[in-house]
């Protein structure tokens, strides 16, 4: 059976419906009304219910079925950023960012190696200098002390 709605669109609508349902369930465990004023669960319950209703309406009314573009490259980029965030506490801020940039330039974009190293080192160096040295943000530090 051919779906009337694109799979990604369906996933989004279901995600928002699930989010709304989660909020409804959690809100019902909270006090809804206290004296003459709404309590912690009141507004979240309404928001959840409205979101479920809207997501349902989108599933019913949406008639667009767009052509699906390939998702390989964006997913590869997501994986590299995830690896970088994982590596932040192991390798430190500057090395993780440097490696992410280098991987994106060389492995994903097939850009020249020497220029990629220079841009990756320059960018991670400037970010470290501005945020860590100048603004005093305590960014994660690795074995190299950066």
């Amino acid at each position, binding site marked *: 059976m051919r779906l009337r709605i694109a799979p990604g669109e369906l996933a989004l609508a279901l995600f928002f419906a699930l989010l709304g349902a989660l909020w409804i369930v959690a809100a019902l465990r909270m006090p809804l009304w206290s004296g003459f004023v709404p309590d912690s669960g009141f507004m979240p319950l309404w928001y959840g219910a409205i979101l479920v209703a809207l997501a349902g309406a989108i599933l019913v009314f949406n008639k667009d079925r767009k052509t699906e573009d390939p998702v390989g490259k*964006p997913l590869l980029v997501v994986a590299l950023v995830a690896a970088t965030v994982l590596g932040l506490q192991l390798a430190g801020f500057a090395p993780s960012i440097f490696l992410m940039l280098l991987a994106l330039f060389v492995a994903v974009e097939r850009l020249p190696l020497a220029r990629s190293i220079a841009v990756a080192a320059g960018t991670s160096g400037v970010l470290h200098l501005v945020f860590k040295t100048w603004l005093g943000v305590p960014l994660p530090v690795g074995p190299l002390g950066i």
Partner: protein
Amino acid sequence: MELLAQLGQGFAAALTPAHLLMCLLGVVLGQVIGVLPGIGPSAAIALLLPLTYGASPTGAIIMFAGLYYGAQYGGTLTSVLINVPGESTSVMTTLDGYQMALQGRGGVALGIAAIGSFIAGVLGTIGLMLLAPPLAKVALAFGPPEYCMLVLLGLTALAAVGGSVLKGLATGVAGLLLGTIGIDPQIGAPRFHFEQSWLLDGVDFIILAVALFGVGEVLASCRMASANPILNVGRVLPNRAEWRQAWAAILRGSGIGFLIGVLPGAGATIASFVGYIAEKKVAKDPSRFGKGAIEGVAAPESANNAASAGAMVPMFALGVPGSNTTAVMLAALIMFGLRPGPDMFTTNATLVWAVIASMFIGNLILLLMNLPLAGLFARLLQIRYSWIYPPILAICVTGALSRANNVEDAWLMLGFGVLGWLMKRYDWSAAPMILGLVLGPIFENSLRQSLTLSHGSSAIFVSRPIAAVLLALAVLAVAAPLLFNKKSPA
């Protein structure tokens, strides 16, 4: 006449070399801070505060004020060029600014933002000069019911920001829902934090904005990175037709921004949202918005700059901060042994008028600095996207980390980034989600406070004149499109 004499004295004080230097330093630092996501002007002023212990109070406040409105200029650059809002106040600028850049009109987008910000800054400063005491009194009349109705009016715009009404409403309500994460402000109990202590502070606005706009845009565009056409920079100054479209938006944005800036707690972010939405509402063809309408850049940019001047009204006239940044500035005034409050204009007239005069000078410096720089920065668009998007991702990760120094924020940003990508892919507008996240906590808080005040009677919203007018406007905002527009919902 007395006003002009005081302003003259203010200029005499502001034009001394030391104060000019502080003004220049403030606006340049503000511009840089504005570009960096995750670091806002309030954090920057707090960081600089210890460095000004030995400085004159007038010089320090001139620098802080310059940093505040300079940041509003700086946030525009990244919004237009790479779709990453450097400041929360520039989120709305991304909607049309980036589209203008993609159409080879990045220079004009930055140019009109600089001109609009300058005009709004000057008008806002005139407003501060003339209207500070009376407006401060009106701002004090804004209690929870008025705030609640003001936010309700803002919420009616959720569907208006995006393309599809249903999708706009859904993402807006999702934003409202995300706004309930953290500590319940009324009773102090945690909710929706899923036993994660880092979620007790809630979802930060800038994390969501950077993720949905920055990471989402990168993921959506990286597939075509090597094939992306090299974009024309274009001219910086708007032509006659563009100017005709933008001038009214600048004036409206300035007025809206200044008035919202005056309200304690509302701030430049809400001002930019309302400025954009109002412009879309009055436009003859609202469908141009989100596709590179110059008014979509002019209005929010004017509004956020005018709001920064407006936020000084309650600070100087009442000793009440109008925004996070003026709260830190207020702390600075107290640190210098000054007593902010109604008698500030008489007991510290030299300082107040020097700061007001410096705001005229600072806005002029920013205009002179930004017009030539706009063209220069816009040239970034000529670099191949393969070289651009990896550093954008690095800036996004750094911005997320620097918000509260925890890695969980970076994970949250990545998660929302993937959501932003999917939303972009299927034309779900991201802006209503941000609007919902900003307005949700204010709405819930003010609603509960209002009902506490009225012992549960909702008549409080119609018995107070300002609240009743705002409620009527909200009803009109919903009813008018339904009555006069036969658009399909999805």
